[in-house]
């Protein structure tokens, strides 16, 4: 779709990721990557469980929850019973399947996605409060993380006309 001429194009997106499931993290990654690919500045702020996405030890182990997720379906479309989701290994299996489906669409794993986004100029920040809470240090986080900052400092980066803040 073409933006109408009289509209002012979006110039910057600031995306806050507070959850660590595959789908929440990928929502952030796809939006940030989509922005830089369109020439739109992108800044990401990871907080609370979203920190898993930028924590070296956790980033490759993201899962989709198989419990309490009414949109979850079996292959073929039948509802996915929550009681099945609690069985050991089911969540890991579903998560592995999600990842393989994404790979088939050329959607990269989390670490490679960050490489792509930062190659396009996207910036990654971690939340000071949440890293303190989870006892994480800068060296626990991926090297692409520019800094650990407060939400106030993140807002300071969100200035300028046609900037949007998005919370996933």
């Amino acid at each position, binding site marked *: 779709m073409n933006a109408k001429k009289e509209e002012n194009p979006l110039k910057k997106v600031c995306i806050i990721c507070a959850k660590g499931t595959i789908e929440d993290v990928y929502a952030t990654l796809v939006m940030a990557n989509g922005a830089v690919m369109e020439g739109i500045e992108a800044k990401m702020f990871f907080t609370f469980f979203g920190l898993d996405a930028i924590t070296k030890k956790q980033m490759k182990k993201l899962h989709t929850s198989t419990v309490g997720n009414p949109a979850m379906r079996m292959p073929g479309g039948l509802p996915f019973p929550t009681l099945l989701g609690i069985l050991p290994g089911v969540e890991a299996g579903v998560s592995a399947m999600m990842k393989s489906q994404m790979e088939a669409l050329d959607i990269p794993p989390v670490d490679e996605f960050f490489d792509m986004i930062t190659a*396009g100029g996207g910036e990654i920040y971690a939340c000071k409060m949440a890293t303190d809470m989870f006892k994480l240090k800068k060296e626990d986080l991926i090297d692409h993380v520019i800094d650990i900052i407060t939400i106030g400092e993140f807002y300071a980066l969100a200035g300028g006309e046609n900037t949007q803040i998005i919370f996933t």
Partner: protein
Amino acid sequence: MATQNIAGVNIDVNDEGYLNDPSQWTKEVAIEIAKEEGIELTDKHFEVLEFLRDENEKSSTLTIRKVGKSGIVDIKGLYDLFPGGPLKKSSRIAGIPKPSSCV
């Protein structure tokens, strides 16, 4: 749908300036479209354009990841060659349809 005179030839373009028929593409057309995008084409640019055209011929869905793995240029390099729209601008200059992928 419109006809635009590019490099002295009448070319069918859509309303976003993408070529409707990739076979109307020539290097001269590429150079002209690139100028509109503010890009001066080098040999490296043409290597990328040829890759995109080949992939399009094979009807594969183009992503910047695929270009990054082509061995021609990495993703950072692709952004440097086509600033502000690595896949969109390169596709337009390569005379192929606007990319339909989110990555």
